[in-house]
């Protein structure tokens, strides 16, 4: 049984090309723990056509060879034709990777990015593959739906409760740099305004289907329950409410590990997720009860007949409304 809400100790992993920390070091969330080096783009420069040469004749006009480092505007090839000298120049600095078929392949310089720890904790391991593992305490939420990269900022609750909509009116300029929390997201205007005001990210329970159909909104968005769900699971909302003002690391769908929100804080003992037994709190993870919470009221033995007529194992759940229903194990998550 998966657990999307975790309160306790966990290991947060960041991947980089070169680490800048050692095991045992205590790091803050905004500490740079490593450098990620992405190879620069490879570009193809047509040498033959501007010089009016056949591809096989290009070599006689070349001013550089494979392996040469070139600077911006450096002449790569030139040829005197009648009274004019024609030349081909480097559009950027780089390394000549190859010359073939009338083209020159130029590798532009590597791009370095600083990788922050993301959470406060202690470096527990640095692997040969460049993974920095940080052991930390706090709250971690795995989202269901996500978009965008990574954002960091203080948690700001914008809705009264877990079923409130994060409307565009709730996105204001004084929240710049914050991660906004709401029950659900239903209008495009709220996202556009958040991007315009430099909001660090949006953390909601559900997202409306028309918004979920698009990606590339330009800021990290995480929905904990899914698409078309008009609320956040109450336990998740309460966990975030208790941490209002704390810095949260929000990673959208494009980040490694999928959509996630991580908040570092001290954890008192006994906050572990409860066991699977009668009375345990559970979250339902499939419609029509997606994002609902209840308590296990009975654990029937063996296969049970579902409302659709299939046979499966599961538990009887009592919802706060008094309604009782049977849910397959696959559709349940134990809550802390």
């Amino acid at each position, binding site marked *: 049984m998966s657990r999307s809400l975790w309160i306790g100790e966990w290991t947060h992993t960041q991947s980089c090309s070169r680490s800048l920390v050692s095991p045992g070091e205590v790091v803050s969330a905004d500490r740079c723990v490593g450098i990620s080096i992405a190879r620069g783009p*490879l570009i*193809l420069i*047509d040498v033959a056509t501007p010089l009016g040469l056949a591809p096989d004749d290009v070599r006689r006009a070349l001013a550089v060879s494979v392996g040469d480092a070139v600077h911006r505007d450096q002449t790569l090839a030139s040829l005197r034709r009648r009274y004019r000298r024609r030349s081909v120049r480097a559009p950027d600095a780089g390394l000549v990777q190859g010359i*073939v*078929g009338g083209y020159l392949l130029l590798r532009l310089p590597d791009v370095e990015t600083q990788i922050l720890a993301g959470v406060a904790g202690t470096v527990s391991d640095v692997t040969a593959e460049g993974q920095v593992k940080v052991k930390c305490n706090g709250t971690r939420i795995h989202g269901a739906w996500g978009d965008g990269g990574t954002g960091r900022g203080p948690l700001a609750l914008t809705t009264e409760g877990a079923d409130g909509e994060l409307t565009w009116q709730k996105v204001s300029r004084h929240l710049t740099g914050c991660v906004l929390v709401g029950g659900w997201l239903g209008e495009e205007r709220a996202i556009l305004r958040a991007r315009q005001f430099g909001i660090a990210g949006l953390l909601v329970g559900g997202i409306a*289907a028309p918004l*979920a159909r698009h990606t590339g909104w330009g800021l990290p968005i995480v929905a904990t329950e899914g*698409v078309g769900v008009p609320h956040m699971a109450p336990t998740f909302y309460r966990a975030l409410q208790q941490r209002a003002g704390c810095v949260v690391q929000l990673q959208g769908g494009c980040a490694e590990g999928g959509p996630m929100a991580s908040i570092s804080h001290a954890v008192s003992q006994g906050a572990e997720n409860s066991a699977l037994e009668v009375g345990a709190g559970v979250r339902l993870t499939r419609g029509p009860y997606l994002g609902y919470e209840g308590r296990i009221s009975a654990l029937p033995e063996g296969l049970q007949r579902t409302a*659709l007529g299939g046979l499966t194992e599961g538990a009887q759940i009592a919802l706060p409304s008094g309604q009782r229903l049977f849910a397959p194990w696959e559709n349940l998550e134990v809550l802390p």
Partner: protein
Amino acid sequence: MSQPQQPESFLAADIGSTLTRVCLIDRVEGIYRLVARSQHPTRGEDGIDAKQAVVGAVRRLEEIAHRTLLDDAGEMISPERDDGTGVDAMVACSSAAKPLRCAVIGLTADLSLQGAVRACTGALAQATTTLALGALRRAAELAPLLGLADSPPEAIILSGGFDNGPIAPLTAGAELLAAVLADLPAHERPVIIYAGNQEARRPVARALGDDLTLAVVDNVRPSEGIESPRELQRELLRLYGERLQLVPGMAALQRWCSVPVQSSPDALALALQYLAKRHDPSTSLLGVDVGGNHTAVIGVGKRGVNLTLRGGLGTAAGLDGVLASASLDDLRRWLPLDVSLDTLTAYLENARLWPFTLPQTLDDLLALQAAAREALRQTFAEWQAASLAEPLRLDLIAGRGGVLSGCPHPGLVALMLLDGLQPVGLAQLVYDRDSVWPQLGAVAAVAPLAASQVLNRDGLAHLGTALCLSGSVRTGERALRLRLETPGGPDHTYEVAAGEVRCVPLPSDAEASVKLWPHPRLDVGLGPGAPAQAQVQGGALGLIIDARGRPLQVSADPQERAAAQRRWNNGLGRR
């Protein structure tokens, strides 16, 4: 691990990308039987671990079968002990590794490129980039080639040119490729598979240089009208096998197994071959597998096995691929309810986001089945295009996959197969209700008798025989008159109207003779209007008569369409 000569008991595992399924096979009164089965998510909180997933499923199996299979350290007990703990042997197959990402570079888009792309779909490989060198004139057009250096695939297939044709374009392509890949770190360099003009083998090898790994196979298009994909497919399957070994936990799991872990599509193909032989050596079988992240169509006939696999197209994570390749309206036409596009999006997106969960409402279930129909339809169309020489006679249609085995009513399973494949004539329909076929294919590698006995006794759910008419007549007109003659029983005559699907009861173990008189414009396989006579076998639905015509027409009007779908569902007993 020492093993007895004749294993009596087996554990067989199928490690999928979403779920790992394990079954226990043992001899009961001298015959191999399926004792119990279980499943467990393949992905744990720390990602995929094949061995942990199998351990999780086996622990569950121990509870179900009341039999100890693992010791306290979580290691398999083998061989089986006198007290009944443990098993004699374990076998496994897996599709946990994603299909091999391939770039296909050819000279022309219509000949060599298409042949190589088709070969990929039959060899657990996915052509993520295709490039026709002959069409490239400007630097901008070569951008996809540069993309190979930024995001290298696992293999690059270089094809093109008939044997004895010109060599220069291929060597120029190889030189360009070598230059593009020159500065890739060794572990990122793709394997180059050369499947072009055989005369150009040496010049191409020289142009690629010593830093790239080159595998040379037969030309996929040695001359006009001849396609020779087998050797290329063998090489791709070998690479996939290597990749499977890299799945976390697979090497540890391998130590438990009597034989190397197979790919699940290979194991399934073997089980389907058994299934085809069980009926009649001349049977033409079509197997379909709608998985969470891939859909496969496997033909088994006189010409051997013909596989088409579409990665990223399925009913869990693969819903992404379905939504990318089909419009919501395409999916909505399969629903017996008039739902909004937003509601349909929510059903499918949430099924994708929560891949281990099960539908709890009929609408949710039907939305998933609509996606399965679309995945089937698309993969079957690709299979047909790839099986150019294969005759399209389908005697036996064998379906499997979570969306079928988890379906609470056989009528819905039959409709998914009929809608997705649209067969014509007579075809028996069976499905893998217990999700054991790939495991049985894996068992067949060490104990063919066990695989065959379990498949015959426990592994088949018979839906019945489908009789599908092609052609088109006005809805409501009489499409078919048939007389059903059962040995020792009374004869029955039925009339079926065009546009309807219905079933005639016939138990699974019963056979009957049918005489058919179709409408003059409808065809049961012998030509329009031609009467026919055949022997049919029963099943859970009996004789299924699909008089909706081919190609299947679905009304554009939402209410009319929903009403028709409801009628078809009801016709097969789902009310």
